[in-house]
C-alpha cells in the first residue's frame, strides 16, 4: 500500500518547505498583530522545534528520522537553514537541532503537573528570520526544488515519499507554477508519489478554505490554481487531520486558502508528524505529548 513505508533512521523522510518572502509578506496577517513574514517565521521555527522534540529523548542525541530543507523565494531563491549551500539544501533533523542561528530565552505560560498555570522560561530556537522583499517567483522556486526532490528520491527509494509545502500570500509573478509543481508530483519513491501541499495566507479576515476536496466554491482563479497543484492527503494524514477535529471529505487535498495563523501552524504540525515514525498515530488517538 502506498504511503505506508516505516519511517526510521535507515529510511528517513523528507520535508521541504518553500516560503514566500515577497514584499507583500510585510503586511499584517489576519487576526494577529504581526506581519505575515514575522508570524510565518515564528510558525516555521516553532514547527522545527516541535519536530526536533519528536526526535529527541532528552540527551545530546537526536534520532534522524527525517531530513528537512527550507527554501525562501522573493528577491532571490535562497536556502534558509544555516550551513546549507546551493546543492546542499537538505539537512538531517539532528544537524538542524545543532545549528540554529540563535537560541532565545522566552517566557511562556504552561500547566504544571498539578494543573496550575505557571510562567516558565523556555529556549526558543531560531533558524528562519522574517524576510519581505521582492516579487513572488513561485515558479522558479518549484523549479529549484525539483532537482532536490529528484536527487533525494533517487537516494531514498524505499522511504516515505517527500513532502513539499509551499506557503504564499499571493500569486506567482513569474508565470504559472503548475507544470513545475506537477513535475515534482511525478517524482517519488517506491512508497508513492511526492506530495505537494499549498498554503495561502490571508491579509484580511476572509472565509478560509481548509483541505477542500474539489475546486467548487473556491473564491478566485489563484485559489483554483493552487488547489489544482495540491496533492490529495494520503490515508494516514487524512485520518490525522480528522483527528485534529477537521470535518474533511474523501479526496481532501493538502491545501489551505485564506488561512489564519493557527490553522497554518496545525497544518505544518501535521506535515512534520507525517514524517516522524509515530507522529500521526498520536493525533489519531488524541495522544499529544505522551506515548510509547
Amino acid at each position, binding site marked *: 500500500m502506498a504511503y505506508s513505508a516505516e519511517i526510521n533512521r535507515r529510511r528517513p523522510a523528507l520535508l521541504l518547505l518553500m516560503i514566500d518572502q515577497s514584499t507583500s509578506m510585510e503586511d499584517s496577517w489576519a487576526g494577529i498583530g504581526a506581519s505575515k513574514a514575522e508570524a510565518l517565521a515564528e510558525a516555521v521555527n516553532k514547527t522545527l522545534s516541535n519536530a526536533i*522534540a519528536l526526535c529527541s*529523548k*532528552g540527551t545530546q542525541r537526536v534520532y534522524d528520522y527525517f531530513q528537512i530543507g527550507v527554501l525562501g523565494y522573493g528577491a532571490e531563491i535562497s536556502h534558509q537553514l544555516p550551513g546549507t549551500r546551493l546543492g546542499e539544501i537538505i539537512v538531517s533533523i539532528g544537524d538542524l*537541532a545543532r545549528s540554529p542561528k540563535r537560541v532565545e530565552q522566552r517566557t511562556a505560560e504552561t500547566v504544571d*503537573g498539578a494543573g496550575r498555570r505557571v510562567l516558565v522560561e523556555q529556549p526558543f530556537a531560531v533558524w528562519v528570520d522574517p524576510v519581505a522583499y521582492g516579487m513572488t517567483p513561485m515558479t522558479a522556486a518549484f523549479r529549484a526544488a525539483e532537482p532536490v526532490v529528484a536527487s533525494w528520491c533517487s537516494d531514498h527509494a524505499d522511504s516515505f515519499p517527500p513532502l513539499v509545502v509551499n506557503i504564499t500570500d499571493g500569486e506567482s509573478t513569474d508565470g504559472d507554477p503548475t507544470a513545475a509543481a506537477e513535475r515534482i508530483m511525478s517524482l517519488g519513491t517506491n512508497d508513492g508519489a511526492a506530495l505537494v501541499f499549498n498554503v495561502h495566507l490571508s491579509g484580511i479576515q476572509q472565509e478560509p478554505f481548509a483541505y477542500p476536496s474539489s475546486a467548487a466554491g473556491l473564491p478566485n482563479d489563484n485559489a483554483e490554481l493552487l488547489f489544482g497543484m495540491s496533492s490529495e492527503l494520503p490515508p494516514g494524514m487524512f485520518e490525522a487531520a480528522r483527528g485534529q477535529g477537521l470535518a474533511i471529505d474523501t479526496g481532501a487535498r493538502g491545501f489551505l486558502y485564506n488561512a489564519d495563523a493557527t490553522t497554518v501552524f496545525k497544518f505544518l504540525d501535521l506535515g512534520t508528524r507525517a514524517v516522524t515514525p509515530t507522529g500521526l498515530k*498520536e493525533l489519531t488517538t*488524541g495522544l499529544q505529548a505522551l506515548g*510509547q
Partner: protein
Amino acid sequence: MTAEPVVLANSVPKPGEVDSDNEDRVAFCSGRIAMSDGASRTARAEVWAELLVESFAQDASDPLGPARLELLRAEWLDRVASPDLPWYAQSKIADGGAATYLSVEIDTGRARFAAVGIGDTCLLHVRGGDILLAGPLTRPDQFGRSPALVSTRVGDAGHTGDRWECTTTYKNGDALIIATDAAAAFLLGAPTDALQELIHTDVLNDSEEYSDWVNFARSQGGMASDDTTICVVRL
C-alpha cells in the same frame, strides 16, 4: 507456607535497535517484582522506569506513595538534567518523562500475592496453562497507543484514577507472567502452549533463545515490534 518463587526475566529492544535503546525495566528481590515500560516519546523514560522498579524491588518502597513519588521525581531530574545539555534536550526534559508500572509482592507464608498496575504492562496469573486472572488489561483489543502512565512532572496525580489493584491466593505450581505491552497483548491471545513454553522451559534463561522466541512471535504470531520484556514467576 509455599516454596520460594523462582523468578526469570529477559528483555529485547525493538527490531534494529540495541540494548541501550531499550526503555523497559524489570527488577526483583525477595518476592518483590516490578516492571516498567518507559514512554519513548517522553524524556529519559528509561531512567524513570528504572527508578520506579528499583524503588519497589530493591528499596522495598512503594514508588506510587505521594511522598516517595515526589522524591523519585526529584531524583529523576537530578540524574537527567545538566546545564551542559543542548537546548533541545533541556526543552525535552522540561516536558517530563513517563512510564507504565506494575508491581507484585508475593507472600509465601500465606500463599498470596498483591499486584498494582498503571498502564498496559500486565500481569497474568496462570494455572495449568489457563489464565486465571489478568490485569490491568485483560484482552488484546484493549491495547492502544495511549496507556495510562506515571509522569515525572511534579505534583502530577493523573495516574491515580487508572490504578489497578489485585490481591489473591495462589497454589504451588501456579505461575505469574508479567510483560510489557507487546508481549502482554500477544500472550493474552495466545494458546495454552505458548504460555506453558514460557513457564516450563529455559527460554527466559538464555538471551539467544529468548530473542529467537520474540522474533518468531513477531513474525508468525503478529506480536508488535516493540521493546519486549517478560518475567515469569514460578510459584
